């Protein structure tokens, strides 16, 4: 092995080399930061989904409390509602607002008992960051005479 002396022209690195190295370093750093920000973005969407599921379930859970005439009376169950992400927070920091609709429609299948059933659709819409329009829907049925004899 021979170690040659550094000639003057070869000492240090050239400007082109430094620029290339800097560009590579910059690209790698930008990629890492991008990945981190994307992780946060996805985590936030997951949290919004979790909260949306809670809100929809709250609405669906209480359907069984309504009598058949209340279900069919126009306006007894309001057709729209809003819910904040964090209802316990002080005004101004409640987070995103979920806009919901509660729709009661005829049973969508032709059967002998279709007059005794209704379809319930709860839809939730909200706007995430980057102006992303998002929506979740829950569809269920309600029967006039209930399903089980232990349901009061």
């Amino acid at each position, binding site marked *: *092995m*021979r*170690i040659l002396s550094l000639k003057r022209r070869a000492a240090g690195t050239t400007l082109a080399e430094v620029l290339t190295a800097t560009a590579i*370093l910059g690209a790698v*750093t930008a990629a890492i930061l991008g990945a981190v920000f994307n*992780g946060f973005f996805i985590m936030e969407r997951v949290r919004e989904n979790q909260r949306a599921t809670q809100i929809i379930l709250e609405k669906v*859970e209480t359907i069984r409390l309504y009598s058949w005439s209340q279900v069919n009376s126009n306006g007894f169950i309001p057709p729209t509602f809003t819910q904040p992400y964090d209802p*316990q927070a002080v005004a101004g920091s409640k987070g995103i607002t979920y806009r919901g609709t509660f729709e009661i429609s005829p049973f969508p299948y032709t059967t002998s008992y279709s007059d005794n059933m209704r379809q319930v659709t709860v839809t939730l819409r909200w706007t995430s960051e980057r102006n992303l329009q998002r929506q979740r829907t829950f569809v269920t049925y309600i029967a006039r005479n209930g399903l089980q004899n232990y*349901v009061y």
Partner: protein
Amino acid sequence: MFIKPVARGARGYTLVEMTVAMAVFSISGLALASVFLFSIKSFAAMGNYAVLDQANREAMDQLTREIRQARQVTSYSTNSITIVNGNSLAVTYLFRPSTSQLVRTASDGSNKVLLNDCKLIEFQLFQRNPVSGSYDIYPVATNNWQHTVKVVQLSWKTSRLINGLAQSENVQTARIVIRKQKKA
């Protein structure tokens, strides 16, 4: 192997060169260090959110399942509720502000911490009649209220600080209809 002597013109760096090099290295080093620290904080925060979300969901699932099948609510306050569950055990869910825990105790002697890092919890009870034109339900009667409870509404908030790096919060609300509670 032989080493040639260093040529006269190529030896060492001047003070100016050295200073500039050190300045450039310091600035890029600081930038890299801040990116590194930011990444560590971010990963900690994301992990923290995931852990908190999972713990909250599990606690909510267990509590919801048991209250749905309850035979009766026997006592309650804003931060505790006692029910007779589907197996006829007396079960109490109690929020302890001093330890920030939600604890489940049952009359069979079992004792379990359902949730840690709890900052706020609230139970509310309602009867079975919904209010027209809103999603509200009438609150329980004052007299003989145990026989009128049909709906348990609860909300809580957990927040967790991990290694002084990242503070994460989680909000849970639920409205649970007791299936077996008969009409009064």
